[in-house]
């Protein structure tokens, strides 16, 4: 059975080739880089919106892409349960498109931050976390200026178990020091109620090969394995 994943290429996406590299050469599955105007949902089992600055992030991070025809295609996938994943800028697009609740605001440092952090798995029943265990602590880098997650009704999000990942320290505690950007409740990634749409600020594609990790880990791989597994179970 062939799993076919599309990596959406918006003008200004810049982690597109990195994500394709990991899918093709590390995870060893077929993934296409698809220019946003040419994207047809019917050809794919799942889609990833990669990091970058889609449409220059003009107006507000992710908002222009969120109103592009490619997102209408992705909405079809969202509604019939295929995985729709947003990484970094992709997460910003998915909140702007209201596939996911909440918003991503400017970091509380008021600067772009590029550094390796740790996240803890809170929900392992999603299309981007099912190969992990609850409580796993993962090494992964962030690189963003607008990654401070915010939502009006945190309680509802918690009750629905929609928080998938939170920034933590090495002991799994949600401290202020381990929260790099001031996200509400240390939130790093959330999902929709159906668990097929996930947005995640850190970059798993930069954490999938031990040579790139300061600690020699490759925790990023499990995100993509989860996506593949989720697709296989659906088919």
């Amino acid at each position, binding site marked *: 059975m062939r799993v076919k994943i599309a990596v959406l290429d918006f*003008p200004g996406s810049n982690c597109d080739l990195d994500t394709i590299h990991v899918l093709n050469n590390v995870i060893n599955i077929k993934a296409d880089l698809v220019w946003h105007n040419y994207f047809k949902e019917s050809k794919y089992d799942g889609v990833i919106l990669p990091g970058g600055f889609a449409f220059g992030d003009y107006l507000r991070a992710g908002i222009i892409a969120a109103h592009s025809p490619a997102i209408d295609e992705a909405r079809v996938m969202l509604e019939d349960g295929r995985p729709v994943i947003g990484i970094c800028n992709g997460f910003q697009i998915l909140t702007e498109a209201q596939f996911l609740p909440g918003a991503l605001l400017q970091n509380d440092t008021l600067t772009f931050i590029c550094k390796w952090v740790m996240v803890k798995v809170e929900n392992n029943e999603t299309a981007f976390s099912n190969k992990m265990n609850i409580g796993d602590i993962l090494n992964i880098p962030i690189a963003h200026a607008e990654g401070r997650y915010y939502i009006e009704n945190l309680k509802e999000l918690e009750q629905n178990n929609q928080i998938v990942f939170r920034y933590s320290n090495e002991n799994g505690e949600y401290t202020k020091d381990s929260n790099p950007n001031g996200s509400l409740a240390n939130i790093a990634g959330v999902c929709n109620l159906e668990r097929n749409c996930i947005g995640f600020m850190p970059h798993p594609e930069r954490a999938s090969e031990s040579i790139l990790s300061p600690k020699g880990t490759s925790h990023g791989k499990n995100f993509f394995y989860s996506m593949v597994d989720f697709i296989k179970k659906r088919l």
Partner: protein
Amino acid sequence: MTKVRVDENELNVDLTQSEVEWIQNALERNPSITELGMFDVMWSEHCSYKSSRPKLSLFEDAEKNYDYVLAGPGQDAGVIDIGDGYALAFRIESHNHPSAIEPYHGAATGIGGIIRDILCMGVRPIALLDPLRFGPLKGNPHSQWLFKYVVKGIADYGNCTGIPTIGGEVEFDKCFESNCLVNVACIGLGTIEDFKHAPSRAYNPGDYVVLMGGSTGRDGIHGVTFASRTLTELSEADRPAVQIGDPFTKKMIIEATLEAIKTGYVRGLKDLGGGGLSCALSELTGDGGTGAKIDMGKIFTREPNMNSYEIMLSESQERMAFIVKPEGLEEVLNVFQKFEMAHAVLGRTDDSKILRVYDGDNLVVNLPAIALSESPTIPRTEKRPDYLDQLLTEITPEPSKKLDEIIYILIASENICSKEWVYRQYDHEVGVRSVVKCGDGDSGVLRIIGTDKFIAASVGTNSKHCYLEPYEGAKEGIVEACGNVIANGAKPKAMVNCCNFGNPEKPESFWYFAEAVRGMADCCKNLRIPVVGGNVSFYNEDEVSNTAIKATPEIMIVGIIEGEDNIITLPFKEFGDDILIIGETKAELGGSEYYSVIYDLEGGIPPKVDENQIKTRWNFIQELYKKKLIKANHDVNKGGFIITIGEMCFKNELGAKLDLKDYNNYGLRDDELLFSESVGRFIIETNPRNHNEIMKLAKKFKIYVKKIGVLSQNPTIEIKGLKSGKLEIDALKMKNLYQSTIPNLMEI
């Protein structure tokens, strides 16, 4: 400024009277206003190198003397063959003047320009590095403002284009207070085929000339002539000469250009930077031996009613000119369409060797293509400044503070402390190539995916040393930058430089330039490192305070690491290991951080470079690498080797027990021994069981290596064997000072 009458207008140009006469004679008529503007720009110091060219001929011919050099000076970037079918392009450039006036856009467009230069070589830009210079931050809001917005400009632009910023260096010194330096370097990677397909020349008559990218506006007109003058109080009024960058469009240009090249129909390409269309068209045709007929009306402008003068001289960012084979025009234009990039077919090349530009039926430019790119040179006089004799005789004052106190002050000083505040703002990981994390190595290290080869790159120079002894200082810059890539396990392959100096019309300023070039040329010849490109920025001088910057010949070195297990990082790894120093320490405190920070002293004898010695040390280190005997390596730099050892302790919070009793061959004072900045030393970590083997090799190579201590678990640096007895330094306190200086200064 020279006043020239053209028809009924009087134009102020930066050309000299004799240059204007030369042009009139060559054309056998008066130039049109647009033509005169084009000469003004193309013959500016920035574009024509008219003062520097005679000196730059001292560099040996890289393409002739090194078989792996594919493109040398004079091209948009230097290109080397790194094996496995790959070509590496790199270049460094200055964007000092615009950044001094408008730090954010000045720095951003500097990045934009250097990216285009690399793209012109047909390869993908994969990394950026930025050496910077500012006035001291402490108590200086102007310097803080420049620093903050230059870094933000680089970050916003580089991050958006998806090119990681993997390295750089920052120095703070009073001389840069009103003339900050923003140098930008870029590295590109592609196959040798990619490179061969895209020369920046129009060799073939009959090809189409296509302009792609942003629209042409009134911004940046005369940016290059602005960069070829000293800054005055009036410079604030020059703000319209600073271009505005658009990193999003740049990202699109990168992708559209690379995809257009892949069609195989692009025969030449050139970025529009300094001098705009004038520069691009005259270089494409002039250097290619062709001519061209251009219809100016096809150029898409940002605002109506722009005249030919403005259009030809505009330095609006984000534009590229393509020379396209006739049979492939449609396919290339389709690529531009896909990316929704504006484009226009401006005309065709021909064999006339004349560049003709029509505005409707009016012929507004009618010039021999070669004339613009062949400016006359200007012989400049050089004179060694009188003040140097006095400065060089300064002797080391009696220590006014305790040694441990001095060490804590030095580690927290602006030039030595951690630059994490800077690199946290840069996306240094996009591209999934960065294998040594910022702070873990002396250079940036990138993998070449699909091979077991790695690129190491470093930039730097020591402005304080160059101020006292530019010949030795420039050599030191090369040895340092090479030392940085060697410390990460690489072999240095090639060099590019960016010369930042004062006003060349002043003999003292020109002497610094001439000496630095002589130093670089000699050092590169002696170390067998090809110089594959360079950039000269003069007029970094401030007429208000009448001060020139300290001579700053920035050096960029790229090296290659063969194999993943040959990558070495700087943090100490394991307690119980030996700490060895390679190279002797001499009383070379002139221009040191110790003098500057503790005594506010600028003089003394700076370090000297002995290339034969240095070369042997490098060979010795390569031999140790081959035998896998080195666990950590850090090049000794500002503040002396005690600072180097401190930096190596920080990451894993280790300590060191040092005994310097037998490491003082010249009977130095304690402060001289600890803080001297003698060039070309390394601190390495080795396993104690390899000691004999290492010493045997040292004997064979005839180099000086000494075990000066062992690593301890307890994060304290104990120093025995000093004349003043024992010293104990708290490594954690040192680390904390190292990390907190810049955040404390920049937090408002």
